[in-house]
């Protein structure tokens, strides 16, 4: 009753192939659905004028600014902190109960629903520290949210640098820090950058954290302590309050394109970087 390998092979390829086709199809469906409704709305005018009448008409200019500033602040805070932590964990500690505990902690943090970070940010930054609904509160909360992602991806990238490079560096009289700076980090950079880009992507798309910590002001922010609104939040409010489905889809299209641009830029930067080294 044994099925010949020839047939199990065919069955396996069919099932695996079907799964792939299904996945790609869903992705394309979502993209086409959103872009089909959103692209006709999207124009330079839409991007660079302020909204009017709560967003029922007009564009998304202040929201564009908010969408740039919040992830920017988040990444400025989270990238150095996260990369430094991962370098320390991999290069300067031995695998012990404490490092395992730290790793377990970051894994748990990575799995925490974003709304929890939103609530934390609201209580800690907005109320206790009195920063109010602001770019500062939002950016810091987002930074906390993406920190585990950055730490784990950088850790993997640093760990993947061949041990031989470290040994050679030590054997030529380099200290551990020199080795990290001149050999480990440059070779881990593509992976580290991937983590940072993932972090930027997540913070651009994030809604729950931003509503709780940055508010939803439609004015152009003039300082980091002003409230602001990101595209994800704008989309959510327009759709939920039934203000304007057209503008909601226009915003969604802009959001998708923004994320695509971030990812493509990172991809090409990394490619050029790798090409330059080899």
């Amino acid at each position, binding site marked *: 009753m044994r099925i010949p390998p020839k047939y199990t092979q065919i069955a396996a390829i069919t099932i695996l192939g079907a799964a792939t086709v299904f996945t790609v199809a869903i992705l394309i469906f979502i993209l086409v659905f959103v872009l089909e409704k959103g692209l006709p709305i999207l124009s330079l005018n839409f991007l660079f004028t302020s909204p009017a009448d709560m967003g029922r008409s007009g564009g998304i200019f202040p929201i564009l600014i908010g969408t740039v500033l919040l992830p920017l602040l988040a990444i400025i805070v989270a990238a150095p902190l996260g990369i430094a932590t991962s370098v320390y964990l991999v290069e300067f500690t031995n695998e012990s109960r404490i490092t395992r505990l730290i790793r377990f902690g970051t894994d748990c943090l990575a799995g925490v629903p974003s709304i929890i970070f939103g609530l934390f940010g609201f209580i800690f930054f907005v109320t206790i520290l009195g920063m109010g609904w602001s770019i500062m509160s939002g950016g810091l909360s987002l930074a906390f949210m993406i920190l585990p992602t950055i730490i784990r991806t950088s850790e993997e990238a640093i760990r993947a640098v061949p041990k031989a*490079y470290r040994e050679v560096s030590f054997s030529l009289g380099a200290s551990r820090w*020199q080795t990290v700076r*001149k050999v480990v980090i440059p*070779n881990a950079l593509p992976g580290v950058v991937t983590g940072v880009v993932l972090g930027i992507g997540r913070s651009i798309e994030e809604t729950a954290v931003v509503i709780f910590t940055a508010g939803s002001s439609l004015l152009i922010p003039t300082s980091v302590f002003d409230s602001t609104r990101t595209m994800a939040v704008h989309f959510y409010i327009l759709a939920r309050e039934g203000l304007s489905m057209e503008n909601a889809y226009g915003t969604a299209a802009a959001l998708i394109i923004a994320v695509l641009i971030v990812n493509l830029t990172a991809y090409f930067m990394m490619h050029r970087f790798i090409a330059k080294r080899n």
Partner: protein
Amino acid sequence: MEESKKVHDIIDIKNLDLYYGQFQALKSISMSIQHKMITALIGPSGCGKSTLLRSLNRMNDLIRGVRITGQVLLDGKDIYNSGMEITELRKTVGMVFQRPNPFPLSIYDNVVYGLRVAGVKSKSQLDEIMEWSLRSAWLWDQLKDKLHHPALQLPLDQQQRLCIARLLAVKPEVILMDEPCSALDPISTSKVEDLMHELKKDYTIVIVTHNMQQASRVSDYTAFYYIGNLIEYADTKKIFTAPGVKQTEDYISGRFG
């Protein structure tokens, strides 16, 4: 102090025991390495020869759970003494590894790596030592026009000699070679061996090898190790023609190992 004597010890190993956790990898090893000679360490896999090699520049410090007792004297100073500056030690006792392992950088940047970490900034000084190192490793003529090409694009034997050049740039006294030819074909191997003969004029070389012919071709002294013990240590010629111990004879004649 012993300049008048033609042969003198540069490294003196005294009662060296080394443990990986509970496992004892080296058992009370005592041997001295002669200045400006090539000493080969041979023996079957797991006999401790690489471990011994790596305890001469404290590369074993990087492995967790390693415990060492006894002494390794370099020019009379114990390298395991807490006063020993480990980065200085590793420059004095340099290492060439089993697989050619240039950094994914240009040829130039590879050769000057050790100088840069030592704080040399002057371009003319870097250029000068770089050229000298490549010449010493017989690479200058082939590589002088492509110094800024990626090192990883070179053929393997040039990569390995580049690694030697990179080491020479930091002006070592002793060169440890851990099976430096095991990734190379016979022609490349003979180039590296010829280079070793040349280097012997200025440097002390300790080489670990699995290749008995290589040991007999290149070395002046040979030490045979077996499960953590130094079985026999003598002139290479004597080891290969008239070994004093039965185990050595069995090993070099291919009866085990």
